[in-house]
């Protein structure tokens, strides 16, 4: 089974801090994704990557950046955290470059609170 591991289940940070959310997958997947999940809004794509050092903006990239230095690891960075970034963050991965038929495999999520 694919294992997608997010480094923290719960995280509390202060406004203005630089925040790193880490995600690691163990199945040599090429595609990796970061979403945020808010009640009534479903999942919204922040950034995704289909190769090492490659990244593409999703639907809501403002206030975020990402890093993919190794194939198995995809980091989400909040450059200067704000209270409106309090949310559940989900990482996912999928096999195959640009293959729309592949399902995504999700981590358990990080519930981030910005105070």
């Amino acid at each position: 089974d694919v294992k997608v591991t997010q480094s923290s289940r719960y995280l509390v940070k202060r406004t203005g801090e630089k925040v790193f959310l880490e995600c690691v997958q163990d199945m040599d997947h090429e595609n990796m994704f970061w979403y945020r999940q808010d009640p009534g809004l479903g999942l919204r794509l922040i950034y995704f990557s289909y190769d090492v050092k490659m990244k593409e903006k999703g639907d809501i990239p403002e206030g975020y950046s990402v890093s993919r230095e190794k194939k198995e690891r995809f980091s989400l960075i909040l450059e200067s955290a704000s209270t409106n970034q309090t949310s559940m963050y989900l990482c996912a991965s999928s096999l195959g470059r640009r293959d729309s038929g592949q399902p995504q495999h999700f981590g358990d999520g990080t519930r981030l609170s910005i105070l």
Partner: protein
Amino acid sequence: AQSVTQLDSQVPVFEEAPVELRCNYSSSVSVYLFWYVQYPNQGLQLLLKYLSGSTLVKGINGFEAEFNKSQTSFHLRKPSVHISDTAEYFCAVSGTNKLIFGTGTLLAVQP
């Protein structure tokens, strides 16, 4: 552009009753469709997927879904639900390199 609509934000149902969770999509190209389940404090888990072939797709935990191209629908069904099916269910359609998710339906199973 693709989009997904889950009209029901919450569906209450009694244990052992049948249930249908509705999903409609829009797409100008061939689609791949997915249903995911999210149990409390967990990530999303794949229930089933439609790629091609038979329009009736069977998934895990006794769920099935039917792809209807003329109605652009992919409704999820289970003939008899259990308390343990209480969760949020997300329908998704494939886009270029990504999935587009609906806003989710909370299935609340009552004893």
